[in-house]
């Protein structure tokens, strides 16, 4: 019994014939809750942590967290800290449910995908290159706004550091 609802033709001449919704999520409860993630990112010293509520087009997740690392090692450390916390939480369980980590080898952009919560750990260059804020802001339709970016292109913003070892 397929509940088929045909989508309208998109402007890129692709038409999808699909039923309602996509694949179900792997686990109904979260591996890590949002305040816990924020606390870990703060402890690790990640800069520029931003929590974005997933826009409507991203139905596969609820929250997107973007965090910046200062170096490839730091970015890998962020992802390992989150995984460590998840493992600790699930200690003693019969089976551990671990998130998917994409990009662990190169420390430029690591995605930790745990169903409802996706954490992107990037380094500063990658963050500027991919421009995540522009991508997931509410009124964006995934088109490039060249005029706006040019205005900001020559402004140097000093990033704020979340560094515990202050000189």
């Amino acid at each position, binding site marked *: 019994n397929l509940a088929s609802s045909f989508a309208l033709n*998109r402007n890129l001449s*692709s038409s999808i014939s699909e*039923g309602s919704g996509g*694949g179900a999520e792997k686990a109904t409860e979260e591996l890590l809750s949002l305040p816990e993630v924020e606390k870990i990112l703060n402890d690790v010293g990640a800069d520029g942590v931003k929590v974005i509520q997933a826009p409507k087009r991203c*139905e*596969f997740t609820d929250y997107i967290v973007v965090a910046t690392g200062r170096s490839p090692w730091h970015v890998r450390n962020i992802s390992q800290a989150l995984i460590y916390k998840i493992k600790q939480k699930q200690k003693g369980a019969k089976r551990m449910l671990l998130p998917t980590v*994409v*990009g662990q080898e*190169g420390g430029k*952009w690591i995605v930790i995908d745990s169903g409802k919560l996706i954490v992107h750990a990037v380094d500063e260059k990658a963050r500027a290159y991919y421009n995540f804020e522009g991508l997931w802001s509410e009124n964006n339709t995934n088109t490039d706004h060249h005029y706006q970016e040019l205005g900001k292109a020559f402004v140097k913003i000093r990033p704020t550091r979340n560094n515990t070892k202050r000189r």
Partner: protein
Amino acid sequence: MIQVQTYLNVADNTGAQKLMCIRILGSNKKNANIGEIIVEAIPNMSIKKSEVVKAVIVRSTKGLRRESGMAVRFDENAAVIINNDRSPKGTRVFGPVARELRDKNFAKIVSLAPEL
């Protein structure tokens, strides 16, 4: 079902416009579907023309079948150019992508995609 000599559209903003598959990586198969990495040639503009790059198929006219019985088909074959650690070379992805990419460790492309 993308095989050697298949022309694909490009679904990102790298500047390339057409890609031709010259090999399917990772296995000795003849056909590739969504989520497989292939090696491409003949792009345009910002990537140099006739450069060999890796790309992952995100849309195919053959489509997929999910375990629930639902079938997904697209009107074109499209790919996203990636580099060796599976992150896309461009900054944006255009058009819908199949949801199965997430399970095949392409969460980066899925998170850049406008719709699923």
